């Protein structure tokens, strides 16, 4: 994980349109890789990536003040991947495939 190029370490509340775009630019490859591995499915990952971008932009003002933009983006990605897995598990009837562990 890399350091402090523009946007990534800032608080999400401070991101304007351009800083948000730059943040996405820096993070997209790794985020996509993360989503593909989480979901095991490139098409689902693409959909989730879109949702991450939309959600991140909408939730920007709600981000905790202590959070770096990069960490916050990944928190959203983790959450949305789990949501996608949960929907999939429910629609296929399989349960507890992703809730089986509680560290």
């Amino acid at each position: 994980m890399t350091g402090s190029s523009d946007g990534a370490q800032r608080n999400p509340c401070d991101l304007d349109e351009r800083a948000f775009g730059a943040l996405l630019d820096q993070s997209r490859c790794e985020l996509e890789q993360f989503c593909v591995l989480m979901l095991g499915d490139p098409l689902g990952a693409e959909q989730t990536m879109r949702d991450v971008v939309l959600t991140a932009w909408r939730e920007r003002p709600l981000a905790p003040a202590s959070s770096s933009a990069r960490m916050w983006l990944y928190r959203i990605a983790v959450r949305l991947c789990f949501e996608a897995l949960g929907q999939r598990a429910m629609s296929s009837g399989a349960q507890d495939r992703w809730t089986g562990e509680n560290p």
Partner: protein
Amino acid sequence: MSTPESNSGQSALLAAAQAGDERAFRRLVEPYRRALEVHCYRMLGSAQDAEDLAQETLLRAWRALDRFEPRAQFQTWLYRIATNACLDELGRRPRRPELIDPFPDQPVGAAEAPVYDPAARYAIREGMELALVRAIQHLPGRQRPVLIFRDVLGWSAPEVAEVLDTTVAAVNSALQRARATVEEHLPSSPPATLEPDERRLLDRYIDAFERDDVDGLVALLREDAMLRMPPQPSVIGAVAVARFLRETAARGDLSHIRLTPTRANGRPAVVAQRRTPDGLAPHGVLVLEISDGAVVTIDAFIDPSHVARFGLPDPA
């Protein structure tokens, strides 16, 4: 960003544009077009859509121009419109049945390489091998993101703890369990290899290329065979596909392309390299669908970057 118009020049253009002068508007926004395309690309992750969305942005700006407050920053205003246009696009876009990039079932000639080795976690970074993707799907709960962050993306344990809202100790313990599960689910024997009849068909296919034998190639294709190569339109029909491969893809001589058999996305495939005066240059990957001894579909991924993933040397 440098703008060719001076401030006063820009104000004059803006005033003219707000009064309805379309040519003044074009001159006003032209210096921003490229930057807006870059911004849209960053938002959407697709160069093709970025150009359309930059255009859409300018259209929206033209329609809303009478509401623009001249004291505000014009550039900021355009970025805001572009951002909204991209978000609309992201929300609206249906799932497109896109082709998935070719994934090697096993990199060519890499049978002896370990598929997964937590100690050499960066080795799998570029590969994203299908076996690993599948094994990861067995990980429950937080074990999954923990393993991906730590072993594939190379994050530190404290970073992973922060993003998952947990402790370093919990990350480490989840990681141990995750590694055990992944190793258990990775195939110990080399993954799928070509079936004998697939292999025979591929050999004939490759042979037809080597001998620049269009008729031989046509004979291997089902009559309604289809070549898919987005974003280009598909080519349909055995003769049309063979001709396209020879005239367009191979620039007039099939033997300009050297093919190596492999498997990708669970299907037989060939890695294509171009013969150049300096040796072989990576060209792309063709994933085939074979039915009843004939090639039915060819999915062409013409992008040199795919070739490296299949373990062929990538001559500089």
